[in-house]
């Protein structure tokens, strides 16, 4: 790794960290480094200062807050996927996190780092979006809550302002009767998903009462498959679900790259959404 020269600070408090980021508009927060370091290595990013968040214990850990779970931004993927609280209260987060890259990355990479990087090909943004998570940020001016629907602004661009640090995300507990699945389509185990579908489904009496669907890599930001969600309300398992999922690519604008052209991604979104819903609904 041969990055360009940068300064490095490792604040001992959140206030110091906010100050360090606010005082230099080219400073960058360093969490687990699994996305930032490759950019530095390839000299695609030239931050003036790296503000290492690694010594701020208040940013790590998973907390039960009654109607939601709060996951600290610096909690590693490995900690998230092994947390009994996350597994019981928001299993979609746990089972999706278990698909992130490989064990080495999951031990370094962080929940908040992945969200703040706002890569639409990352797995967790679509999950937090599907679950209507709320992201909590802090700056010198204080704390701010940002609904996931407003957090992901564009490709690699979040709603975080200069000088703001992501503290973590509130993940609402959906309660009983929900099933979950993350359907990830990738060519090799360690490759980015070509398309991913995060699904939460509440089912009763053979039909679907409610569905939340987040799409990975189907546009510059993670997306909700709203058309499918409404079509699934009251849909009976079988043909009705199949038909509803045909709308999965509506409102998406997937890019074309070496692994897939947009029309193929749209096709995959339909197939994978159907599979995700079926699995989440417990009818493989």
């Amino acid at each position, binding site marked *: 790794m*041969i990055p360009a020269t940068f300064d490095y600070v490792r604040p001992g408090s959140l206030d110091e960290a906010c100050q360090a980021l606010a005082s230099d508009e080219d400073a960058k927060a360093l969490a687990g480094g699994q996305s930032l370091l490759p950019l530095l290595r390839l000299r695609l990013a030239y931050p003036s200062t790296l503000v290492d968040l690694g010594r701020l214990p208040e940013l790590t850990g998973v907390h039960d807050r009654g109607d939601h779970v709060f996951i600290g931004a610096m909690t590693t993927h490995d900690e998230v996927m092994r947390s009994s609280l996350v597994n019981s209260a928001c299993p979609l987060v746990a089972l999706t996190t278990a698909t992130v890259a*490989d064990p080495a990355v999951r031990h370094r990479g962080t929940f908040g780092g992945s969200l703040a990087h706002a890569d639409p090909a990352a797995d967790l943004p679509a999950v937090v979006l599907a679950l209507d998570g709320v992201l909590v940020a802090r700056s010198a001016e204080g704390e701010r809550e940002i609904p996931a629907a407003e957090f992901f602004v564009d490709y690699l661009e979040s709603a975080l302002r200069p000088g703001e640090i992501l503290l973590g995300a509130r993940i609402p507990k959906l309660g009983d009767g929900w099933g979950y699945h993350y359907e990830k389509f990738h*060519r*090799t*185990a360690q490759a980015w998903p*070509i398309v991913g579908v995060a699904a939460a489904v509440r089912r009763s009496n053979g039909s679907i009462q409610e569905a939340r669907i987040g799409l990975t890599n189907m546009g510059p930001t993670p997306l909700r498959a709203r058309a499918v969600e409404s079509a699934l309300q009251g849909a009976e398992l079988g043909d009705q679900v199949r038909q509803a999922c045909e709308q999965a690519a509506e409102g998406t604008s997937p890019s074309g790259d070496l692994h897939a052209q947009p029309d*193929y991604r749209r096709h995959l979104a339909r197939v994978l959404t159907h599979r995700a819903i079926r699995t989440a609904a417990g009818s493989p």
Partner: protein
Amino acid sequence: MTELDPGLVGEQIAESDQISEPGGTGGEIGRSRRRKEDARLLTGHTRWTDNLVQPGMLYVMFLRSPMAHARITRVDVSGARGLPGVFAAFSGQDFADEQGSLPCAWPVSEDIVIPDHPPMAVSEVRYVGEAVACVVATDRYRAADALEAIEVDYEPLPAVVDMNDALTEGSPKVHEAGNQAFTAKITSGDIEAAFRDAPVLIDRTYIQQRLIPSAMEPRAVLASTDGDGFTLWTSTQIPHVLRVMLAVTTGIPEHKIRVVAPDVGGGFGSKLQVTAEEVLCLLLTRRLGRPVKWTESRSEGNLTVHHGRDQIQHIRVAAESDGRIRGLQVDLLADMGAYLMLVTPGIPMLGAALYNAIYKMDAYEFGCTGVFTTKMPTDAYRGAGRPEATYAIERVMDELAAELGLDPVEVRRRNWIRHEEFPYTTIAGLTYDSGNYEAATDRAMALFGYDKLRAEQADRRDRGDPVQLGIGVSIYTEMCGLAPSRLLGESNYGAGGWEHGTIRMLPTGKVEVITGTSPHGQGHVTAWSQIVADTLGVPFEDITVLHGDTAISHKGMDTYGSRSLVVGGVAVLQACEKVKDKARKLAAHLLECSPEDLEFAEGAFQVRGTDSRKTIQELAFAAFTAHSLPEGVEAGLDSDSTFDPDNYSFPHGTHLCAVEVDTETGMSKIRSYVAVDDVGKVINPLIVDGQVHGGIAQGIAQALYEEAVYDAEGNLLTTTMADYLLPSAADLPTFVTDRTETPATSNPLGVKGVGEAGTIASTPAVVNAIVDALRPRGIHDVQMPCTPERVWRALEGVRR
């Protein structure tokens, strides 16, 4: 889930688990010894080139062309020279008078064009990544910063990316002489007669995509001088060849150059090269008087390590209505890239005599055109010519079977050389010394559960299952043991094919083996120890193997083309025999008997019918003290030997692959894989299994994952591992491997070589399986790599 017979699988696993532990003498050959190398390599006690440090060492980095083709109108390195930590900065012009031209040692034809290939471009760049300037600094960070301060002006010239376009009249030229590098043609038998009125004609075109060799250890070079001579440590497969070539290229006398290949972390052919960086590091240390080191980054490597494959194969088969082949016609376009490197033009020619493969036929014609493009040059990559040939013939045999409604194994059976017909001289002129395709195929089909899988396939077809099952057959042979020097001479190759081995009995009875092969992951230290232990009767642990340093291993032809055991292992065996001959004379002298009265067993010479004996260790000490030597016998118990085989060796085998193709997404998933290989006698089954596993993985990678992609402007798009996909263990199935053993007759060990067999066999096995799954839908080809998107588009094409 696999459908394998559990009893057979159990037998396989049991075999691999029987790993021998140290102790005892004799019976080493054929034992699954754990490798001597591994404890050191796996615990980080390694000597990779990048770990080496010399006093006063400086770091080199190269500025590389962002243009595929351009005239260089200005290079200004002055901005870099003033920066902190920067020791020197140079343009190609600064070395124009001394850098020479990178060598091509295999002018395969009379009409070949070998363009000048300056290590650092001077006036024109011809591929993205070609070095145009360099910086020498106190550390790599400063060097990288300084590269950004160098200014280069380019006057763009048109990129030449596509081989067919390159050969059209009026195409922009890569070189002044044009875009055709060479042409070659081989004809045997009456090809016209074979194709005239043939009842069956199959005509196909296959594309061998461009691949990027991805050795675990990136390339690295460290050069230093003591003011008189030069030492070059480099991550190479070929220290001996490199030393000669560096002398020829730079004019530095050969005896002033020492080349060391320390621990080398894989090569797969990519380190069978004389690289620009090696030449330039040598010249930089000469100019600066300081040690200099260069280590590539992975992205730099993707751009500039020589690439592999990249051929368009037009193949035609004429056959009788019962499937018997009359004639075979092959016409290749082979992408050379921008220059001819060490053996670039030889790569397609290594397959020239193998398209006919294991099959009998009346006529054969092979044609090849080498084409220049503005891309990274191609050269050897695991298998080198043989995977391409095997792929085309094994794909087309499946097409022939489908055309005739025959089972793919049956159509092969009707054409292959039967075991009782060996030795067999093929239509292409090679003489296969031994083989038994029937035995390997029968064994593979039993392990695979062939009939049961065919039944399941039929069932899935009948049910219209969205997940279809395909069965891929690949029955291959290849040629190893490069090579008889006489045959290499006939093909105009720039060197011989012999190998050298030395045995030094040390005074205490321990053994130093020196080999001219240059292992970079193969396990020669272990395998050579097994050969020596059995031949001299010394304990396995008492043997050390030295290699990879031209000051220690003074003669050698290095490691590539599955040649090391077949040629180098035999040289070691012969050196042992010479040591034994001398030891016998000495023993007879000391025991006061005639040499003929002595029998050698378990490491000692014993007077027949008595208990009077001398061990080889005692004799080594006696030869060292030299207190009492027989007349005309010199002190010391050492020997040198070279071996030059009189024929290639021909491993063969049958690989069967079952693939599940998800017709909704296009994803192909390998469900089971059986490989039964015949590599002749086996020295160490554990090493052979490892080579087969790794080889299969690499061949699967070509079938499913890997592809170097250039855009229309000649930019490489696959510069990182996020874009250039390599499979990991998580992506691969459990391989079931077994062997049949038909010894080679061309060497005294009966060995055939195993370094490339898996790669050669597996690519067509996988693609044949995918096509087999899709054939009822009207699909008869999917271009490699068979990505989910390509399979889906093929299905979309026939749905419309």
